[in-house]
């Protein structure tokens, strides 16, 4: 079993929709949780990270962590075609390395 599980998608939504992207994890040592966006043939781009449980908002993006259920979410409001990309969640515990999920491919159509 992978330490971070993520549905690969693709997830296809119309422009303007609210998108919900989710991950589960198994490593209880994870304290930090990250969301990266990766466009085709590019490197991952950090969107935001959170510490422990709770919510964090940045513009149209909201990250949510529920450590009790080991569940991580990213919400995108007013989705745009330019949001079409693969979204990677990651966790970090007591070491410096990030453990990534497989990524969810999102397609936002006009």
């Amino acid at each position, binding site marked *: 079993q992978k330490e971070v599980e*993520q549905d690969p998608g693709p997830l296809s939504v119309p422009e303007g929709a609210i998108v919900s992207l989710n991950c589960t994890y198994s490593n209880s040592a994870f304290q930090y949780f990250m969301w990266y966006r990766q466009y085709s043939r590019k490197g991952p781009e*950090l969107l935001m990270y959170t510490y422990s449980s709770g919510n964090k908002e940045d513009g149209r993006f909201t990250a949510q962590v529920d450590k009790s259920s080991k569940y991580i979410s990213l919400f995108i409001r007013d989705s745009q075609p330019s949001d079409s990309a693969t979204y990677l969640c990651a966790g970090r515990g007591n070491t410096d390395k990030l453990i990534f999920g497989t990524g969810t491919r999102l397609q936002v159509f006009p």
Partner: protein
Amino acid sequence: GAGVSQSPRYKVAKRGQDVALRCDPISGHVSLFWYQQALGQGPEFLTYFQNEAQLDKSGLPSDRFFAERPEGSVSTLKIQRTQQEDSAVYLCASSLSAPTNNEQYFGPGTRLTVT
């Protein structure tokens, strides 16, 4: 400012050849990471440097993989006697310092194809 750069962007190697992949981190970044990303998968950790010290190499898949960062800036990932299963995108990331290792900034990657 300039981000993380990697070269070459694409590399084709015949099975058994040695390859060297280069990473130029963001200027002043102390921490440097290498990840391997197979097609349709998330990045997987290979190794981590803090300045010139290699603090974690637990992700290197075999002794054919070797990484160095001799002066604490540019890093090279070397793969000896390449095999087909080494085909992947190799990503380099840097962060300002150990306390900020949650903010890892990635380069565009080197796509290695072993034929």
